[in-house]
């Protein structure tokens, strides 16, 4: 099926996709007593721990700022967006296995599954990000117009996430090792991205390595928007743009060729 045909099928099955997103949302927030609080409590715990460990215990300091909240904001800018990236990646990776029975028994456009994962993760991210922005507003740290830059930045990031997720999700059906390898890989990726520590805290050699990390320019841009209220340096972003495009193209090919055989493996 061509991309156009797939988009058309997606539109025809929008009810199913939205239904799955709604089901996810209700399952996550309405089933438990504390409801939506859990969506906040999880990253909040992460942020508290990293703040304590890095800013208090290890005395990491952001350069050129005296704001006591600066480190926490820096952390949030990188961590919340990273979580969004990882949620899409990890859930795309397992979505075909999770829905194996449906895929084997019912004929429906398979592209609806990664789409629902993407939308569902986006809903979660929107909630937490909205709360974060509210916090910025309340504490008088509203970044202003630079926030608009988040839209293209997040778009690039999520094209990358969906593309990688699709490739991994399809190949994971054939080789279950993929999921294990990704778990290990993500650990390294997280710590090789300056999310919990400032870039100046690492030696020169590691900084040179960062140049190869496609997420680095994105994360750095989020941080500069949130902490310094500065627009991103667009010229730094073209490698990740190219990479996202390539990944999207590869994922399209992988999906087109392997989505059929994949069902036979489930």
């Amino acid at each position, binding site marked *: 099926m061509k991309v156009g045909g797939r988009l058309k099928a997606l539109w025809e099955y929008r009810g199913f996709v939205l239904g799955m997103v709604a089901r996810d949302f209700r399952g996550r927030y309405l089933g438990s007593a504390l409801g939506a609080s859990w969506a906040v409590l999880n990253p909040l715990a992460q942020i508290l721990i990293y703040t304590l460990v890095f800013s208090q215990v290890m005395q990491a300091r952001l350069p050129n700022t005296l704001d006591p909240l600066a480190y926490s904001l820096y952390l949030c800018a990188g961590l919340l967006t990273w979580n969004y990236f990882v949620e899409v990646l990890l859930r795309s990776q397992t979505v075909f296995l999770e829905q194996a*029975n449906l895929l084997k028994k019912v004929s429906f456009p398979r592209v609806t599954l990664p789409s629902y994962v993407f939308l569902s993760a986006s809903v979660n991210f929107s909630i937490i990000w909205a709360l974060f922005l509210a916090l910025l507003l309340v504490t008088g740290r509203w970044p202003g117009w630079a926030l608009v830059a988040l839209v293209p930045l997040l778009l690039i990031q999520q094209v990358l996430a969906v593309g990688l997720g699709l490739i991994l999700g399809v190949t994971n059906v054939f080789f279950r090792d993929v999921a294990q390898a990704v778990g290990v890989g993500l650990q390294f990726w997280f710590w090789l991205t300056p999310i919990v520590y400032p870039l100046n805290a690492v030696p020169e050699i590691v900084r040179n390595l960062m140049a190869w990390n496609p997420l680095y320019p994105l994360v750095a841009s989020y941080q500069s928007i949130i902490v310094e209220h500065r627009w991103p340096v667009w010229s730094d972003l073209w490698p990740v743009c190219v990479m996202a495009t390539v990944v999207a193209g590869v994922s399209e090919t992988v999906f087109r060729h392997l989505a059929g055989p994949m069902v036979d493996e489930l």
Partner: protein
Amino acid sequence: MSGELAVSGLGKSYRRYARPWHRLCEWATGGRLVWHETFWALRGITFSVASGESVGIIGLNGAGKSTLLKILTGTTQPTEGQVQLGGRVAALLELGMGFHPDFSGRQNVMMAGQLMGLPVREIARMMPDIEAFAEIGEYIDQPIRTYSTGMGVRLAFSVATAARPEVLILDETLSVGDAYFQHKCIRRIKEFQEAGTTILLVSHDPTAVKTLCGRALLLDGGRLIQDGPPDLVLDHYNALIAKREANQEILQAEAASGRMTTRSGTFEARIAAIDLLDADGRPARAFTVGERARIRARVEFTSALVAPTVGVLIRDRVGNDVFGTNSFHLAPIDGTYEPGDEMTVDFDIQLNLGVGGYTLTAAVHSDATHLVNNYDWWDKVIGFQILPGPAPPFIGSAWLPVRLHVERHGKMVTSGQERGGARP
């Protein structure tokens, strides 16, 4: 176009890998390294179904029924061949697909309907009918996990059949709920039939096939072996089951007790192995009337011999010769054979025999009979069964193809085509 179905040359193969990394090696070498076994779940299937026709698909486990259904519903792609389907296809392969226990009946109906590709507005319009048919009353707004099994199944059937499809594919789902609801389901399916829906029913239940279908297809070993009226096909199916059972029994008994046979001769040449195979080349000891078989003998030479003859003889239960032949009469084996030589001889034979038990005797000798030089005579080496098959009933130990033609005052009254055995 609505409801027609045409399948031509359909085949589906799966790749089997001994180890997961074998596939990785194949991928890495771009397919130059072949490390899989190809297994055909289905092959050479050709049939067509007219709009509004009802067809039963029967076969033993592993015959390829599920694979065929998966291809027809579109969940899997065929490896070869084409499927042409006219109109909307609804498949009841499993009831309650896409149901989630924590959501209410109504929400699940919406979801299941959307999964079938129905627009929300359409489902909302059909909701009262769905509720009424399922007869679950107030429970429609309760979470599905509070339902009894029967209620869940009723709701699932109700939503799956809410809109009349052009083609309805049913898989063993007729046994839903209690007898009352089953009747209701069958009534609904019959309504669809009358309205022109094409129905494909996969079932092990002969009554269901006879009640609902005007035609049946029999699959065996991934091939379509019969296509005809349900009665005839079901008879063949029953024979298939009986055959498989008898086959198992005889092979097991053989393995347990060994071959209790007498053997005589000079053993200048000896039969090292002998087997009776079915059309697919598998060892078999039960056949239906008229079925093809292969007798395979492996002969080893211990002395130098010229122009040996290999023969087989089929005897009935009481020891009468029924049929015997040898290579001298069929195609003489020329040449000189040295000690250590060996040869494999295949007799492809159509077992036009009457129902009953038979034995197979094999021999190696010189010239036309074993009376001159008898190298090895292996008496009653294999026992096998002939079971009733698609051939019309008859008596005696030979099946002779018959054609019946009756005329009354010069006008044809009845005529019956000879029906041979399983001739693929």
